[in-house]
């Protein structure tokens, strides 16, 4: 299957780029921990226990946003995206490879954030981990497409959060719900539904974002 070979080649390049420049991942790690610390100070003592869950999800959302803002910078410098678009591979392979890259970065950031959260706030339950894994798929799928859109516009850093936040409200609802409610099944199912719909939509429409 050449499609997955192309995706592998592109994903390998993304990992190589990050190892070479080493700027996005450390920034995401530092950001998520400092966000949690700031949130600690923002919580009044009598705040409900579940309040910290909401803050964790906000921290993850903006960590994802930070990573996504960097997603296509390397491609934009020497108009490399045009080079990739001209290659005979399916353009959605570019999206899928970048998505995997974002997922890896998010995963590593969360691997640091969750123990920190357990330390600072609440013990981490299995439903929180399940919700985060499902939410990552949605955030990466939609975020990568929107990052490519923002890359094609003038006000990139301003535009990405505006495009991203309304679209990921359902992810926050599903995530927080799954963590707080005692029967998380419905919320995890909803997150899976969101991932399915928006991953397919992003996969199918990426071509039109990078080509005229």
């Amino acid at each position, binding site marked *: 299957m*050449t499609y997955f*070979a*192309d995706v592998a*080649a*592109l994903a390998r*390049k993304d990992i*190589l*780029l990050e190892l*070479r*420049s080493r700027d996005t991942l450390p920034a995401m790690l530092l950001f998520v921990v400092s966000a949690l610390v700031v949130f600690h100070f923002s919580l009044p003592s009598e705040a409900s226990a579940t309040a910290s869950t909401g803050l964790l999800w906000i921290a993850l959302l903006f960590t994802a946003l930070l990573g996504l803002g960097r997603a296509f910078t*390397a491609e934009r*410098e*020497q*108009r*490399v995206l*045009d*080079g*990739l*678009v*001209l*290659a*005979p*591979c399916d353009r959605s392979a570019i999206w899928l490879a970048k998505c995997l890259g974002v997922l890896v970065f998010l995963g590593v950031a969360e691997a640091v954030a969750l123990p920190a959260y357990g330390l600072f706030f609440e013990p981490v339950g299995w439903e929180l981990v399940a919700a985060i894994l499902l939410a990552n798929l949605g955030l990466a799928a939609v975020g990568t497409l929107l990052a490519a859109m923002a890359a094609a516009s003038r006000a990139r850093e301003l535009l990405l959060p505006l495009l991203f936040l309304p679209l990921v409200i359902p992810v926050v609802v599903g995530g927080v719900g799954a963590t707080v409610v005692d029967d998380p099944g419905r919320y995890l199912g909803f997150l899976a539904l969101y991932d399915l719909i928006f991953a397919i939509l992003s996969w199918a429409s990426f071509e039109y974002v990078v*080509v*005229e």
Partner: protein
Amino acid sequence: MGSETGRVTVISARGLGRRFGSKRVLRDLDLEVRSGEVLLVTGPNGSGKSTLLALMAGLLAPTEGELEVDLPRGRIGYLAHESLVYKELTALENLDLYGRLYHVPERRETIGALLERFGLWDARHQRVGSFSRGMQQRLALCRVLLHGPELLLLDEPHSSLDADASSLVDVLLSELAGQTTMAVATHDPNRVQRLATQSLVLA
């Protein structure tokens, strides 16, 4: 200089036009390039040379008229002003990536030969960010020729090349003329004039 009529048409444009917002760059262009022909595109800065080549490459869509390029994407080589390679990666890593994406058979050997030919073999493990403008242009030429394209779109191939690199390009062009269809946009046409089978001057 005439081209045999038997050859198939590679590029055909009818009433081709392109506008960027309110600025019109190309207006009502008709064009026909058969396989093996060399089209020379000249004109002052901002006359739309680069836009025409980007349209042919499929990176831009016409806003008026039609443009047909009768070749699959994998058979076209496009040399732009920018090098289209990652500055953080080395020359070898960049070419390896493109080699995989274009499914080039015996990738390693082809890359080695091209780097050798363009005098980049010793710099193959250096980050492209540390390359001089001339070296980046030569690397871009390697990227364009890597998959042996049937159509070459060269936007200012001689730009920022020193004397011997420029003559290298001339030798290359004369080798390929006749088999590979080419569209060359340039400021000093006399380097390419004798090879050109068709000339287009953009106002």
